[in-house]
């Protein structure tokens, strides 16, 4: 391993393995982040909607 990593040739198996891990992490982040974004947008909309005014019940 030690020799393989430091020579000038590229060990494609290791590079591909790292690449898969990186892509998997990015996909995970995008998915979690989309959930957070929807939650945040919903909260923003909710905070803008003001409660309706009701009559106090007097005739």
């Amino acid at each position, binding site marked *: 391993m*030690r020799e393989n990593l430091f020579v000038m040739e590229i060990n494609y198996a290791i590079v591909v393995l790292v690449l898969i891990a990186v892509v998997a992490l990015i996909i995970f982040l995008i998915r979690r982040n989309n959930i957070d974004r929807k939650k945040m947008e919903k909260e923003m909309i909710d905070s803008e909607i003001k409660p309706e005014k009701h009559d106090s019940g007097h005739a």
Partner: protein
Amino acid sequence: MTILIIVIGLALLFDIINGFHDAANSIATIVGTRVLSPGLAVLWAAFFNFISYLIFELHVANTIAKGIVHPEIVTMQVLIAGLLAAILWNLATWFFGLPSSSSHTLIGGFVGAAIAGAGFSAVIYSAVLKIILFIFLAPLIGMLVATLISIVVMWICKNSNRGTVSRHFKKLQLLSAAAFSIGHGANDAQKIMGIIAVALIASGELEQSASIPFWVVISCHTAMAVGTLLGGWRIVKTMGSKITRLKPFEGFSAETSGAITLFSTSLLGIPVSTTHTITGAIVGVGAIRRISAVRWGVTIPILYAWILTIPATGLLAVLIHYILRWIAF
């Protein structure tokens, strides 16, 4: 060569996560004041993050590359350990919605791994002390400048109609957010350029006295812009509405103050935290309204995260360095 490719890959991954984690710094105020929708806000910030390479010279990149750790002791193992520690800490703070500093994460990881690899003499302590000093100075400068801008704005607009003021400052906030994004891109993308430059020097691909290649500059800014486009919404929420509720003129004051601080430190080559700067500025504009307008309870865990970032990433990097040495190298 394989290790060099992995280091560059990890560095760019950190850059994406940095953009993602710190997108909040650029967009929290414009999203919080409803100037732009979240989608448009990240697009706006990412664009100005990317073009910042046209404006600033690479002073911060050179500080990171040659000014924190003696470049001759840096090995690929040190860089991988530092980057992995920084990535892990950034992901942890993102998970808890804490706006901690990506710059300090990177510096802590780098310093910790260098100490594990070559002992305490590997570190240039004067530079690290300057960075530690700015952990406290950056939010204070941000807060002070934001307070001054707020006072000036309030004085100028004291007789104006509130709705008109709000409308004007919503437009001005687009400019201040753009300026802050340029400062963010210039300061943060350059830190990773410095790390890649060190990797190239350590592998013999770049002369120590040579300038940073253009492909490094462009790939770092692209990665940062991609990360910003993703937008770390947990942190946006903390900064845009949890610390204090912002009005457009306050958002403008906070961003302008952040941009001024970042521009000055970028020109001086001081790797200051964009997060600390804008958080300090947001607290400043909130506090000038009234002290109780700031939710101080939210700021306490943020402060803890700021203090812990460098030692925690340093220790994490030491641990990863030993694991790497034990496993593969």
